[in-house]
């Protein structure tokens, strides 16, 4: 990249205010529209959601101030607790994402023939849409036409109705969610492994480190940034889960597989209970805030070191 190719600009410009100050004014002018737009479309709506949660509104009749009654109703709502518990299940299950992702990444980080093809196969679930992932898993577990029951029937096992079962539906959806999540974490770890300092590992090997020792004391500490990001995206993914629930079960049967994000969507856009939906949104936001605070705290602490 050479700068000499640039035409020298006319340096006889008069010394105007603009010439003296454009170096800080231009970035300001550039950032301003983005900041304004972001405020209008993201920041203000968050607060509007919180305000709306204190109203009763169906979109037609005038809004009615109801204080905390949306919240008292919510906390007495069985579906809400079901959603919370399911979100917690999602969270726990998604913590397997980084674990399996790391295992796969270590396995795939080798120089053997055909490894690139193998890697690309493992990326595949992350590349495709969650809609597609949901449909594929839906078909796999479908009780009448599913691949699972087809395979089981060869072993004489009776057909299972897992995705239609009240106690099992949510776990099927979580499994579908975990599929791309493992790929995602694996990609993050593979990038981390590629960027790792090979000399340190060789030195450790010379000193006789191998197996679990090598992994635990040498490799994992170097992969800490990757682990951090993998955990972050897994938590966010678990709290955001919506697409798969919406595609695979619509929260059913009998709300048994609903999550907060889906319940909010259902109450707002299908039942037109805007205040109630906003209360769910607010709960989701508070949970997320706790998490973001933790994230920023640990990140700033890391940078301070």
């Amino acid at each position, binding site marked *: *990249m050479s700068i000499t190719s*640039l035409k020298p*600009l006319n340096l006889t410009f008069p010394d105007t205010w603009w010439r003296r100050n*454009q170096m*800080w004014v231009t*970035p300001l002018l550039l*950032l301003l529209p*983005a900041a304004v*737009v*972001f405020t*209008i*479309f*993201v920041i*203000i*709506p*968050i607060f*509007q*959601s919180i305000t*709306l949660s204190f109203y009763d509104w169906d979109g037609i009749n005038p809004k009615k101030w109801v204080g905390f009654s949306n919240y008292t109703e919510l906390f007495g709502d069985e579906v809400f607790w079901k959603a919370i518990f399911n979100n917690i299940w999602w969270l726990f299950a998604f913590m397997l994402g980084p674990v399996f992702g790391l295992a796969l990444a*270590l*396995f*795939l980080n080798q*120089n053997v023939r*055909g*490894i690139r093809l*193998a890697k690309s*196969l493992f*990326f595949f*679930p*992350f*590349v*495709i*849409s969650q*809609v*597609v992932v949901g*449909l594929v898993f839906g078909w796999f577990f479908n009780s009448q*036409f599913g*691949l699972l029951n*087809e395979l089981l029937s060869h072993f004489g096992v009776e057909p299972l109705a897992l995705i239609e079962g009240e106690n099992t539906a949510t776990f099927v959806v979580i499994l579908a969610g975990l599929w791309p999540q493992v790929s995602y974490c694996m990609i*993050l770890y*593979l*990038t981390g492994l*590629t960027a790792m300092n090979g000399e340190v*590992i060789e030195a450790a090997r010379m000193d006789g480190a191998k197996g679990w020792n090598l992994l635990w004391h040498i490799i994992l500490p170097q992969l800490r940034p990757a682990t951090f*990001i993998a955990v*972050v*995206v897994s938590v*966010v993914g678990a*709290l*955001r889960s919506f*697409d798969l629930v*919406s595609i695979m079960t619509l929260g059913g049967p009998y709300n048994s597989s609903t999550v907060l*994000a889906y319940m909010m969507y259902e109450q707002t*856009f299908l039942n037109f209970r805007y205040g109630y939906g906003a209360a*769910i949104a*607010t709960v989701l936001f508070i949970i*997320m805030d706790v*998490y*973001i605070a933790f*994230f920023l705290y640990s990140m700033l602490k890391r940078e301070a070191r």
Partner: protein
Amino acid sequence: MSSLTTSPKRRSDLTIGRIGLYAFLISAALFFLLPLFVMLLTSVKPMEEIRNGNLLAFPNVFTLQPWVKAWTQACTGLKCEGIQVGFWNSWFILIPSVILSIAAGALNGYALSFWKIRGAEILFAILMLGAFVPYQVYIFPLVQITSKLGLFNTLPGIVVVHTIFGLPVMTLLFRNFYVSVPRDLFSAARVDGCGFLRIFWSVMLPMSTPIIVVAAILQTTGIWNDFILGLVFAGRENWPMTVQLNNVINSTQGEREYNVQMAATILTALVPMLVYFLSGRYFVRGIAAGAVKG
């Protein structure tokens, strides 16, 4: 770039460990490929064969009819014009959204990287907020705002929404890229009398190709695969392919035509898969760089 688990000594090609490794890789690959394989098989079978069961059997009669039907006749709700409607809608949404979000992200990232202000952490934190908070938290007020602006249920509306939601990650991506550019380059252009924007245009942009490719991959796959934003903001006429696909699957008039559904599903997955196979290692870089997107 050294491999972790193989020692630097050259080994003979076939050891027990290596055979085990291949066995694992092949079985894992099979596990990953089996659903895709079954989908592909089912999509070229006539319905009679599917009704008889045995998903894993090869088709007795090979037919492309389900693919044609999925593309041109499958019902997405009331209309039966096939998944192609969604395919074109997705492109109409995708192209302006990708261009706008990258342009905005590049300019803002550049401005942020050269503009040392106090409280940059706060700005960063707010950006993170935008990247992390689930859409559901503010999606309804956003519906109200876009409908007040006349953008709700329109093509420009969904483009604006994608551009704004792409802004945090795009800005971050470009900021991190420009921060690593030697400061001297900037100063030298400055001495030559270049203004702030001129430096961006003549110095920074020409060297930004790699990061633009990464950003384009990230945005293309992200926007193509989006479901909820398209569902809520685009409006019936502009529903993207993912939403249309879900409608094809859920519009149960008469018998469920699994072969058509599978064909439609594969068609929907095709664009991101093409992007992925064509972009090679850029793709992985993009995912790692845009990881905060979640």
